[in-house]
């Protein structure tokens, strides 16, 4: 193929089988048929060709670039780069849990181990540390273990953080990630009254969920989650003030999920969930040990993802449901709207430290919750301080923090810097450390890359179909409404992934 370099502006491209995808750093994209791509590369687009104007407007032609507009587009797309400090603070108030999940990301201990509960003094110092970070918006997410096992500390942190936010005029978002097995009406009322939103895990129908997440307290975990989700949904819908606190649910894919794609979506429909988030399981911490029993290849996950997305799209097209798939929504927000939805994993540099921090029950600070899980397996690699004695600047200056930023900047990655998905993607250092013993990773061999490239391929291919595109655009419109009505956090999503 002859190439005339001079008229070409900076861009990356990918052969998609019969057509080419072009993207640039400013967040613009174009989908060209092979013949068009060849003309473009050869510098032989005629002046009358309407494609010329499109490519010029999107910054793909060097002789006519609107620098101001492209810089504006770059700023919008990377809004997280201009915000000082992390906004998402994950507090592990206990390591205890009453479930024994197959994959347990959080690497938990037995319910009797109260020595792994955060005490009040550590909780206070952790909140003080959080408020010493510079982001004007603070989102505290309670994690565990099962955080409701250390309810007094949850309650204290909610009240103390609210008082501090009021005194310092900071915006505060509170979220509880719980398996709901210990939820009571009193706790629920307290949480509603203090504007704490709810998020849980729901992997699918009972036979799947209970296999993935066995409950130690007797009875079936899935039925409890479903009952509380129904109750919370009802309460939110009946009360104008509470409608923004619609509960969210996250599904984690194990290899057992592959047998239930429709059943999982149907359950979410039955529960009137606004979104379903088809998430891959990361072989991090405990999940790494049991990977042979529950894991799969990245290609298998992408195939499953496409099956799920196809079913969700079909339901939308037939008018049977308006349910949205969250991963697609995150990617489409970047691709079609050119704005950052605040998803920590898909950022360059990644969200670790600059976007989020995780706090263990004893005050230790980690670059992310995944970093804490690695620590739980005996490797302190991702520890960057302790909230009871360190300052925010110590954490920011920590060599590990700096290495994380450098390793996850896609322009430093030989393959990512040339990848058509660079404007939308991210690389996760903890994942690559666990898989490849290098925080930088080696993308040609990385399951992270295979699954993200696969998901982007699926989404871009579907975007070429006008009917799919119509559905996708309707999702963006509805999601945007929520953002506008209810600050930048969309309802029904875990705050773990969505922070300013």
């Amino acid at each position: 193929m002859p190439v005339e370099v001079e008229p070409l502006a900076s861009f990356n491209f990918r052969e998609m089988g019969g057509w080419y995808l072009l993207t640039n750093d400013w967040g613009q994209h174009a989908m060209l048929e092979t013949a068009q791509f060849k003309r473009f590369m050869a510098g032989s687009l005629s002046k009358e060709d309407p494609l010329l104007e499109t490519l010029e407007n999107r910054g793909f032609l060097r002789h006519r670039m609107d620098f101001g507009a492209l810089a504006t587009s770059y700023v919008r797309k990377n809004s997280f780069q201009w915000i000082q400090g992390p906004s998402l603070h994950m507090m592990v108030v206990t390591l205890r849990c009453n479930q024994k999940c197959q994959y347990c990301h959080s690497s938990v201990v037995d319910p009797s181990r109260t020595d792994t509960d955060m005490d009040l003094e550590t909780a206070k110092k952790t909140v003080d540390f959080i408020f010493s970070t510079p982001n004007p918006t603070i989102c505290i997410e309670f994690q565990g273990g099962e955080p409701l096992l250390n309810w007094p500390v949850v309650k204290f942190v909610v009240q103390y953080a609210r008082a501090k936010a009021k005194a310092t005029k900071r915006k505060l978002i509170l979220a509880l990630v719980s398996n709901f097995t210990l939820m009571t009406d009193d706790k629920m009322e307290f949480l509603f009254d203090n504007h704490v939103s709810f998020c849980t895990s729901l992997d699918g129908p009972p036979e799947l969920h209970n296999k993935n997440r066995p409950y130690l307290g007797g009875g079936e975990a899935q039925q409890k989650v479903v009952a509380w989700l129904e109750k919370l949904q009802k309460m939110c819908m009946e009360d104008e003030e509470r409608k923004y606190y619609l509960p969210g649910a996250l599904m984690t894919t194990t290899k057992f999920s592959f047998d239930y794609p429709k059943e999982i979506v149907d359950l979410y429909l039955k529960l009137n969930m606004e979104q379903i988030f088809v998430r891959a399981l990361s072989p991090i911490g405990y999940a790494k040990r049991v990977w042979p029993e529950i894991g799969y290849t990245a290609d298998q996950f992408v195939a499953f993802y496409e099956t799920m997305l196809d079913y969700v799209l079909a339901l939308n097209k037939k008018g049977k449901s308006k349910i949205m798939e969250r991963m697609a929504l995150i990617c489409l927000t970047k691709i079609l709207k050119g704005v950052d939805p605040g998803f920590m994993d898909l950022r360059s540099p990644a969200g670790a430290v600059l976007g989020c921090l995780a706090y263990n029950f004893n005050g230790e600070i980690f670059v992310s919750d995944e970093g804490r899980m690695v620590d739980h397996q005996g490797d302190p690699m991702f520890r960057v301080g302790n909230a009871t004695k360190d300052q925010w600047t110590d954490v920011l200056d920590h060599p590990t923090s700096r290495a994380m930023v450098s390793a996850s900047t896609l322009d430093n990655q030989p393959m990512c810097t040339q990848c058509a998905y660079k404007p939308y993607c991210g690389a996760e250092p903890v994942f690559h450390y666990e898989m490849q013993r290098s925080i930088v990773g080696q993308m040609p061999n990385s399951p992270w890359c295979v699954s993200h490239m696969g998901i982007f391929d699926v989404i871009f291919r579907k975007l070429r179909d006008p009917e799919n595109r119509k559905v996708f655009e309707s999702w963006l419109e509805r999601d945007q409404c929520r953002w506008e009505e209810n600050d930048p956090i969309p309802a029904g999503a875990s705050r773990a992934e969505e922070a300013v």
Partner: protein
Amino acid sequence: MLNWLLIKERKFSIRIPVPKKITTPKPSAASISFDLSVPANGLEPILGAAYLMMDRAFVSLDGDRAKKIAVTLTPKAGATAARLKELSAAFTAELATQKVRWAIAKNNQPIREYISEQAVLLANGRIPPASAAAPEPASEQLNDEQRAEIEKLIAEVEDEIKSMNASKSVPDPKNIKASWEEKQEAKLKGGKS
């Protein structure tokens, strides 16, 4: 001020020759090797193509980084004559694409840097945001006065890019900017790294 800036089209262009064949590969039992001329292919495209082969092969590079590099590809999944041939064809294709990507990247580096710098200034409130609705001038409809203004702007941008590049020669007493290879070479020659 006009929002659109035209960068003067130059009279020449760079043609990227696509290699028909690297050299005749010599299949051995376990791997395939061939030599590549660095001046003809460029160092970055050779390294880039080698990196992208890592999912399929163990890649070894040897030789003089200024002149000639010997590439050896050893398939990860058992070597057969057909697989070795496939690998060398894949490397050739990657190399051709790498040459295009690197040529585009190098040709646009000052512009990318300029826009990124504008983005930083914009995000810090140092310059006002561009109006999204700014009308775009159709170059065919420009009058003489507008043409003259554009020519002036072009000259300004070119100067700006030149001075930006010139100002990049910041002191580097600790030789931080040197690559690992450069430092190793310096060490071998008995110099300080």
